[in-house]
């Protein structure tokens, strides 16, 4: 039997074809930086367990201008993560009914972002009080 050369639509760079896919990829890419930040904290905890000198080295690394600039970038990525996380929330959670009517997706997103804002301010105040 002859081999048929049927047309197969190439899938290379499929996510660059549509702004929707681009946003999807940007949202998924945040996870790489969530892992990177977790690794930075993990390194800090490991260095902390090794004593004051080891922790001092970690702190010095984190205090370098490159690190602070990178954390400014991380801050933007995490803010995007918060926004995109609550934007897809209406699709990832079971429908919620309030007073017999289904809660609108935009309400869920707004509530989530408001919760993140409150949690962030509360966290920062806690750091100030406890430190």
């Amino acid at each position, binding site marked *: 039997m002859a081999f048929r050369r049927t047309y197969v639509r190439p899938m290379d760079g499929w996510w660059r074809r549509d702004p929707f896919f681009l946003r999807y990829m940007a949202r998924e890419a945040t996870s790489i930086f969530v*892992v990177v*930040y*977790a690794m930075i904290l993990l390194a800090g905890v490991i260095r902390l*367990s090794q004593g004051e000198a080891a922790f001092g080295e970690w702190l010095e690394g984190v205090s370098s201008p490159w690190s602070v600039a990178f954390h400014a970038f991380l801050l933007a990525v995490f803010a995007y*993560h*918060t926004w995109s996380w609550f934007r897809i929330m209406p699709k990832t959670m079971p429908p919620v009914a309030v007073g017999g009517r289904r809660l609108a997706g935009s309400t869920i997103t707004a509530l989530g972002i408001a919760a993140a804002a409150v949690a962030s301010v509360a966290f920062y105040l806690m*750091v100030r009080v406890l430190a």
Partner: protein
Amino acid sequence: MRKRSNQPVFWLLFGAGGMLSALLGAALVFVTGIAAPLGLEPRAAMGYADVLAFSRNWAGKAFLFAVISLFLWHGAHRIYHTLHDLGVRGGLVAKLACYGTAFLGSVFAAEALLKIGF
């Protein structure tokens, strides 16, 4: 009996990590990566004694472990599924690389936090 899927476990860890990082990630990055190193908050400069006391407190220990391990599990799950979208069908290799990193990171975090003591 049909073999039950293990996906709900990974999805739960992914969701918990995603939620924690969505609620507190930006604030954490700001405190540990910008405010403390730049001395914007002189009283919270992440000095050795302060961080040690925080990580010796059971609540501080639990918080640090939750942040590190859940962030790792969140990332592992999302990266694993996005690899598939990019045409990488590594199967077991990709799975071990992603979830294995999260597992090892959690073990190292637990080990270090226990070594720090109470």
